[in-house]
C-alpha cells in the first residue's frame, strides 16, 4: 500500500516537472512551479522525510513563486514604462 502512494507521488512529480518546463510563459510557469513544490513536499512525506518536506513547502509553495512573480512584474512594468516613454517621444 505504501508503494502505491509513492508511485502516485512520483508520477505526479514527474508530470509537474514536465509541465513546468513546457509552460514557456514565466508567470504561468510560476504557477506550475508552486504546484511542483507542493507535490514534492508530499513526495518527501511519503518518503518519510518530513523535515525536507517542510523545507520544500516553505521554499516551493511561497518563496520561489513570490520571487519569480516579483521578477515577472518588474520586467513587465519596465516594458510598460518604456513603451509609454517611447509613445511620449513619438508624439
Amino acid at each position, binding site marked *: *500500500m505504501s508503494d502505491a502512494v509513492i508511485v502516485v507521488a512520483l508520477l505526479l512529480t514527474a508530470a509537474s516537472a514536465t509541465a513546468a518546463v*513546457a509552460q514557456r510563459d514565466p508567470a504561468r510557469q510560476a504557477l506550475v512551479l508552486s504546484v511542483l513544490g507542493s507535490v514534492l513536499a508530499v513526495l518527501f512525506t511519503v518518503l518519510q522525510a518530513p523535515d525536507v518536506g517542510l523545507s520544500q513547502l516553505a521554499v516551493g*509553495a511561497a518563496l520561489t513563486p*513570490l520571487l519569480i512573480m516579483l521578477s515577472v512584474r518588474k520586467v513587465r512594468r519596465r516594458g510598460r514604462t518604456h513603451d509609454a516613454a517611447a509613445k511620449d517621444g513619438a508624439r
Partner: protein
Amino acid sequence: MAVNGWILAATVCLGGGGAAALWGVTTGPPARRVVAQNMTTSALCPALLLLSQGYGRPAYVDLALLLALLGPVGTLVFARLLGDDLEGGRPSAWGLTWTAAGLSAVVVAAVCAATGPGRAMVKLLVVGALLIAGNVIASRALSGGFRGVRGG
C-alpha cells in the same frame, strides 16, 4: 504494512486532486489556472493529514499546518501580482471552493475522531480552520480581492 485505509484515502486524494489540479493549472485561461493552483492546497493538505494518520506519526501534522498557512499565501501572491492577467475573466469558482472546503472538513473530522481529544486534536482543528478559511479567502481574492491595485 497491511492495507491501511488512511493511506489508501490519501492516495486517492493525492492522485485525484493532484492530477486534476495539475491539469487545471497547465490549461485554460490564466484565471482558471490560479483557481486550480488554489485547489492544489485543498487537495494536498487533506492528503497530508491522512498520511500522518496512516503512518501513525502525529509529528507529520506540522506539514499540513504549514501547507494550510502558506498555500493560500502563495495564491494571494498570484492574485495580487497577476492582477492584469486576471482582468476580464474574473473567476468565480464558488461551487468548487465549497466542495473543497467540505472535503477538508470531512477529512479533519475523520482524523480528529481517530485521534481523540487532546492537544493533537486542537492542532488538527487549527489546521482545518486555516485550510478552509484560506481556501475561501483565496477564492474571494481571485474574484476581485485586489481590484484597486495598481502601483502597489
